[in-house]
């Protein structure tokens, strides 16, 4: 039996430590992992928990991230709780297996501590890696701070393992900004946390020999299409379970999560749409602008990247004048991912209620994103709103030294 840990009502943890604590409290059976900055401390901390008897499961330090996720898949198919963590190049190396894990409907939890992708080599946080696994069939949650990294990990097990979901779940957090910055955390006690997550209930387990199972069979045009469509449906439908788990979590902790988080949006005229730690920066900027300049600024932030909160986004943005979609990754030859998703959602509402949307690329490779910059973006939206059309490039690289870059200059006749 694993020894319990006495935690204070308030602890000072960073995002990585918070995630590791959640894995410990969920009493994961197998963690198979490979280190990469900035997610490394998650598996190191977990290893220390194992070494000190706080975890009873198997801790398998494998030869690569591809091996880590492959080992996780084998372990999950054998009928137990499984988790790991990675970043950047490691996440890239895992991508093949991410699809296999979701295709086999295995509720593995993966902590992705977001970081830039090489080349050039860069260990700092951006969302270059986030979008690699975008279509891999995982539920994907996004933590804006360390408390949320802890909370969402507990929720992740409960969501993924629900019999109506049975899908792997990722929890994203921003490299260094969230993963390495200590803050006050309100943890649950070990007993409370475990009671919330619940015992693992094996489904189609390879270790039940009364009922042999075949995992990962092959299909061609005869069945593949149906499998993929059903997998998509399962992911789309998982939102009801996500909502329910968030409700239960709120009842337990008072901390409320929604698949789309909105701040000051009731009367907003302009909005920033963002992910990760940038959300808090943008909220601060919006508050200041409202007080200092009377700009009705609001912030919209997908908590759930997959399934994408399409309808909620449409509803929260309809009627607004201008929206800035902030992407912390370089889309390379296109508009940013969040921009595209947003425009897709907005295209379904009547033109007269549709806000103008511009795209800001920012913070690549760990470049700081300031409250001042968020304010500038809000002001620019406000100016566009006042004249009624986009006077600025539809894509800008915010905070970039040197020449202004962007995808398009808007041409108005």
């Amino acid at each position, binding site marked *: 039996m694993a020894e319990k840990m006495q935690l204070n009502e308030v602890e000072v943890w960073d995002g990585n430590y918070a995630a590791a604590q959640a894995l410990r409290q969920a009493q994961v059976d197998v963690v198979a992992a490979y280190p990469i900055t900035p997610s490394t401390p998650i598996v190191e901390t977990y290893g220390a928990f194992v070494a000190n008897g706080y975890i009873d499961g*198997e801790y398998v330090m494998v030869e690569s991230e591809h091996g880590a996720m492959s080992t996780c898949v084998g372990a999950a198919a054998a009928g137990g709780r499984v988790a790991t963590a990675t970043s950047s190049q490691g996440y890239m190396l895992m991508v093949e297996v991410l699809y296999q894990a979701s295709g086999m409907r295995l509720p593995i939890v993966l902590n992705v501590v977001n970081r830039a992708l090489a080349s050039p080599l860069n260990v700092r946080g951006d969302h270059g890696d986030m979008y690699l696994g975008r279509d891999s069939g995982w539920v994907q949650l996004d933590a804006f701070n360390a408390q949320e990294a802890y909370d969402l990990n507990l929720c992740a097990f409960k969501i993924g393992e629900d019999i109506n979901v049975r899908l792997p779940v990722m929890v994203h957090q921003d490299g260094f900004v969230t993963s390495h910055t200590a803050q006050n955390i309100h943890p649950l006690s070990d007993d409370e946390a475990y009671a919330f997550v619940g015992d693992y209930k094996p489904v189609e387990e390879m270790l039940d020999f009364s009922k042999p199972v*075949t995992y990962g069979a092959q299909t061609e045009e005869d069945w593949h299409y149906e499998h993929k469509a059903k997998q998509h449906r399962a992911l789309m439908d998982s939102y009801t379970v996500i909502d329910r788990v968030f409700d239960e979590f709120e009842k337990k902790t008072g901390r409320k999560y929604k698949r789309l988080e909105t701040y000051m949006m009731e009367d907003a005229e302009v909005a920033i749409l963002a992910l990760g730690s940038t959300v808090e920066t943008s909220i601060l900027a919006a508050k200041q602008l409202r007080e200092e300049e009377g700009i009705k600024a609001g912030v919209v932030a997908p908590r759930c990247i997959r399934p994408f909160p399409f309808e909620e986004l449409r509803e929260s943005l309809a009627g607004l004048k201008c929206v800035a979609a902030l992407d912390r990754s370089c889309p390379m030859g296109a508009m940013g991912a969040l921009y595209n998703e947003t425009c897709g959602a907005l295209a379904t509402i009547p033109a007269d209620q549709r806000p103008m949307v511009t795209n800001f690329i920012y913070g690549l490779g760990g470049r700081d994103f300031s409250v001042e910059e968020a304010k500038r973006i809000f002001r620019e939206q406000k100016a566009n709103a006042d004249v009624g059309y986009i006077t600025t490039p539809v894509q800008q690289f915010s905070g970039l030294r040197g020449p202004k870059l962007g995808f398009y200059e808007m041409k108005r006749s």
Partner: protein
Amino acid sequence: MALQSIKNLKEFSTANERFEGAHLLCPGCAHSMIVRELMNATDDNLVIASATGCLEVCTAVYPYTSWDTSWIHIGFENAASAASGAEAMYKARKRKGTLKDPDAPVKFVAFGGDGATYDIGFQWLSGAVERGHDFTYICLDNENYANTGGQRSSSTPIGAHTSTAQAGRVSYGKKQKKKDMVAIMAAHGAPYVAQLAPNKWKIMAKGFQKALETEGPCFINTVSACTTEWKFNPKDTIHITDLATDTLMFPIYEIINGTELNILYRPKNVIPVEEYLAAQGRYKHLFKPENRHVIDRIQKEINEKWEYLQRREEAKV
């Protein structure tokens, strides 16, 4: 007891059927013989991981499966990792008491072709063996990527024609020697490593049993004659395999704890390798006068390897 007694072939081959027929492997494919010999060698519950390749694509085509046991396929390179993961989960759940039948004997096995084993999956296999998971990895060594149409692998012998190491007017086929995977696995310190062949079914079944009963990671390279890519008549699989073992192209031996080497089969009459080569279309071009040197080289290397194995056995190292 988990081990099947191995009396006669009829009895052995009609033992419990956990690898069902009606799969899509080519008639005459040795993969199925090897898999059945493994399954018939034990009564223990099996958790099997298969790498992408002929065995996998031909035996689990949804909504059918030939596997009347726990079976998983993830990808081409990671069967060893899948087996490691399942084995780790078994240990965790046994300790925590969450297994449905905690006393049921279980064995973890991974199958990979030579492509999956010698090439793309090498890193994952090496990692799993280094970590010491209790599983047996069986390489179905048909010396080519059969499933993608017969490309060369690092197990393809020198002189063979493959779809990517072609023999032609100025080429005699593959230029490089076969990788010695058995030695590499022995060097990992795996407690049991062997090279076996399905024609020597008793030796093979006993080798499988030894591997399954040995705690820790075991590796077995099995000769798997491929009628399609080696180009021989499907009825000749065992004949071709006899030639493989009796020319000593595939010596049958085991290495225990990386050191103790035992030869498990000594042909009464060693056959010249020419006969083995002549029986397969993939070596046809070697019989042109200008390629004679390749046959001579193959024979020379066989003699040297056999000499080496015998000396190691004698010296008990």
